[in-house]
C-alpha cells in the first residue's frame, strides 16, 4: 500500500537508526529521514520552543518541522523513557511527543510508543503501538523486531574498535565525550571530528568501548548512575584512563543540559585526579567556529608539548588545560581556561 513514516534526524535517531529503520522497512513501510541539520533547521527549532530548552531538543524541533506538508503518513516520535534496567534517558525525552503536540509546528499524526525498560528489559509492549497502523500480525512484528535488533547489534559491534590496533605512537589519542546526537551531528559540533583528524589525532568516542567494559568500569563509581548517556560517558572515561598512550579528553556538552551539568563535573574531577588534560566545549546555537579552532589548536599543542619535552612535568599545564587552580575551579565560572562557550 506504500505507507511512509518520517523520522527526524535528531536525538534518538543517532543512536538507534539501524534499529528503527530496519524495523519499519521489514514491515514494508518506507522510511523518510529529514536532511542533515543546517542553519534553517536550527533556526526553525530555536523559534519553536522556549529559550531555556537545551540545544539538541531545539534541533529536534527543527527537524520535526521539516515534515510539515511533506508526503508522509506518520511521524515517529517515541517516548524513550528507558532503554536499560534502572537507567533513564532524560526527562526531556520523556516529554518529547507532548512537547511536540503542544508546539506550533504542524506535523503528520504521531506514532509515539512508550519505551520503558526500567523494570524489565524484556518488555515489548510498545511494539504494538509502533506497528498497529501497518499490520495486525504479531508474528510479523516479532520477526521484524528480531531482525532490527540484530541489525542494531551489528552496528554497535562495528563501532567498537580495538584500541591497540589503532594506537599509533605519533598520534595523540583524544577521547571525544558527548551524547550521540552531538557527536554525530557534524553541523552541531562544527566538524570537530574532522578538525581533530586534521590535527593528527586519533579520535575515540564512548561507543568504541564495549558496553560490558563500560559497565564493569562503572563499578568504581560509588553510586549507580541512572542516566544512560551519563553511564556511557563516565564508563568510557574510566576505560580510557586504563589505556596506554598519550591522551587528552574533550568534553562536549550542550548548553542547558541538566545531565551534563552534573556528569561533566564528576568526569572532570576524575580527569584532574589522573592529570589528564581536558577541554570542555559547550555547544549552543551561537557557537562560532573561529574560536573553537584556536582553542583546539592550543589544547592539542599543550598536550604535544608536554609529551615531547616534559613527560612528568604536569604542574605547568595545570594552569592552562585541566585547571587545578584551587579546588573550586574544576568546572566553574572563575576558571575560564577550562570552560568556555564560544560566542560569535
Amino acid at each position, binding site marked *: 500500500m506504500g505507507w511512509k513514516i518520517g523520522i527526524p534526524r535528531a536525538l534518538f535517531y543517532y543512536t538507534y537508526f539501524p534499529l528503527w529503520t530496519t524495523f519499519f522497512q521489514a514491515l514494508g513501510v518506507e522510511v523518510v529521514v529529514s536532511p542533515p541539520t543546517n542553519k534553517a533547521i536550527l533556526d526553525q527549532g530555536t523559534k519553536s*520552543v*522556549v529559550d*531555556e*530548552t*537545551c540545544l539538541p531538543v531545539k534541533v529536534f524541533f527543527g527537524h520535526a518541522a521539516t515534515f510539515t506538508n511533506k508526503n508522509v503518513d506518520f511521524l515517529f516520535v517515541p*517516548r524513550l*523513557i528507558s532503554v536499560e534496567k*534502572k*537507567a*533513564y*534517558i*532524560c*526527562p*526531556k525525552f*520523556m*516529554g518529547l*511527543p*507532548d*512537547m511536540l*503536540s*503542544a*508546539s506550533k509546528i504542524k506535523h503528520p499524526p504521531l506514532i509515539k510508543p*512508550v519505551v520503558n525498560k526500567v523494570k524489565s528489559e524484556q518488555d515489548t509492549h510498545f511494539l504494538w503501538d509502533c506497528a498497529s497502523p501497518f499490520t495486525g500480525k504479531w508474528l510479523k512484528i516479532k520477526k521484524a523486531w528480531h531482525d532490527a535488533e540484530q541489525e542494531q547489534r551489528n552496528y554497535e559491534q562495528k563501532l567498537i574498535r580495538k584500541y591497540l590496533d589503532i594506537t599509533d605512537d605519533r598520534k595523540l589519542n583524544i577521547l571525544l565525550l558527548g551524547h550521540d546526537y552531538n557527536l554525530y551531528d557534524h553541523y552541531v559540533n562544527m566538524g570537530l571530528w574532522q578538525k581533530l583528524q586534521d590535527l593528527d589525532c586519533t579520535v575515540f568516542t564512548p561507543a568504541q568501548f564495549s558496553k560490558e567494559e563500560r559497565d564493569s568500569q562503572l563499578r568504581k563509581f*560509588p*553510586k*549507580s*548512575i*541512572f*542516566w544512560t548517556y551519563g553511564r556511557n560517558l563516565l564508563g568510557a572515561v574510566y576505560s580510557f584512563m586504563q589505556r596506554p598512550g598519550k591522551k587528552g579528553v574533550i568534553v562536549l556538552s550542550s*548548553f*542547558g*543540559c*541538566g*545531565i*551534563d*551539568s*552534573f556528569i*561533566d*563535573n*564528576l568526569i572532570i*574531577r576524575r580527569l584532574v585526579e589522573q592529570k589528564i588534560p581536558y577541554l570542555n566545549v559547550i555547544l549552543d546555537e551561537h557557537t562560532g567556529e573561529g574560536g573553537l579552532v584556536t582553542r583546539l589548536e592550543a589544547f592539542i599543542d599543550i598536550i604535544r608539548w608536554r609529551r615531547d619535552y616534559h613527560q612528568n612535568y604536569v604542574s605547568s599545564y595545570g594552569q592552562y588545560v585541566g585547571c587545578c587552580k584551587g*579546588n*573550586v575551579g*574544576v*568546572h*566553574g*565560572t*572563575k576558571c575560564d581556561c577550562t*570552560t568556555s562557550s564560544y560566542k560569535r
Partner: protein
Amino acid sequence: MGLNVIVPPRPTKDSLSLGVQHSPEFACIPLKICIGNLIEANQLGADTFLMVGGCGPCRFGLYGQLMKEIFQDLGINYHTLIIEPPDTGYWQFVTRVKKVIGPVSWWKIIQGIQLGYKKAVIVDKLEKYVQEIRPREFNKGTADKIFNNALQMIDQTQNLDELEEVFCLTKEKLWHIPQDESKDVLKIGLVGEIYTLLEPFASLEIEKKLGKMGAYVHRSLYLSDWVKEHLLTTRFFKLKGNDYRSYASPFLNHFVGGHGIESIGASVAFAQEGYNGIVQVAPLTCMPEIVAHNIFPQVSDKYGIPVLNIYVDEQTGETGLETRLEAFIELLEAKRKKVDRKITIC
C-alpha cells in the same frame, strides 16, 4: 531524639553566593543553596550531613554524591550519610535510618515522626490562612509578622498539646487582622518545582509579593502533602496528597521527573476551578519544568488562562521580578474587566 542536630541557618544571599562559588555552573539552584547552606552549618560545628539519594530520572538523586565530592575537594570534614530510597524494601530502609540515628527506642522514633508531621500540617494550615489574608489586610505585612512568630514557636514545641495551643492562638490572632472583606481579589495558582515553591528565599518570596499586590495565591504543593505522599507511604498503605497528576492528560501523558506533571495537572485543575492566572516558578535549567513550560501554551490556549513563567537563578534580580509580576497582575485585571463587561452586555 538524643542527637545533636544543627539546623542550618535559613538560607541567605551569602549562602547562595557561597554555593554558587563551589557548584557546577549549570547546576540547578537548589543544589547551590544546599551546598552554601551546608558549608555554613559546618562552620557552626556540624560534622555529618544527611542527604536522601534517589534513582532518577532527575538530578536530585545525584545531589548527595556530588556534594560529597565537592566537600572533599574543599577539604571540609563532613561525614556523609546518603539514604537511598527503599527500592530494596521498606524494612531495610527503616533499619538503615535507625542505624544512622543510633540506639533510640522505636516508640520514640514514632513519636518523633508524628510530631514532625503534625508540625508540617499545622504550618501549612496557618499558611493557607495567611494566603487568604494577605491580599485583603489593610496593614500590609501584619499577617506575615504573626506567621513568622508562630513558626518560631512551633519550632520549639515539644509535644502535641503545646503545638495545638500555638495553633489556636495564632489562628485567633490572624482572624483579628482588619481586612477589606468586600475586595474582589484575583486568584492565582502557583505551580512549579518543589524547592522553589517551598523555600521562599529561592523564589525571592514570590508568594508574598503577589499577595501584597492583591492576589490570593494557592500553591500546587504543600509540605505536609509531600511528606504524606513520599515519606509516610509504604507498600501496605498508600496515603495520597492532592492528586493533580490525573488532570495532566492529554497535555502531558507521562511522568517526566521532578514535578513537571504536577505543574501541568495543577494548572488544569486551577483553570477549571476558575482561577485568573497561573505562575510557574522553577530553577533555571530544571529539566522537568522546561518540559512543562513547553506545554503550557497549549493549556493556556485551551482554558484561556494566562501563564507567567519565572526561572530563578543566582542572577535573578528583585526589581526585574517585581516588574514582571506587576505587569502580569495588570494583565489579569484587564482581562477580568473585559470578561465582566461581556456578561453585563448580555
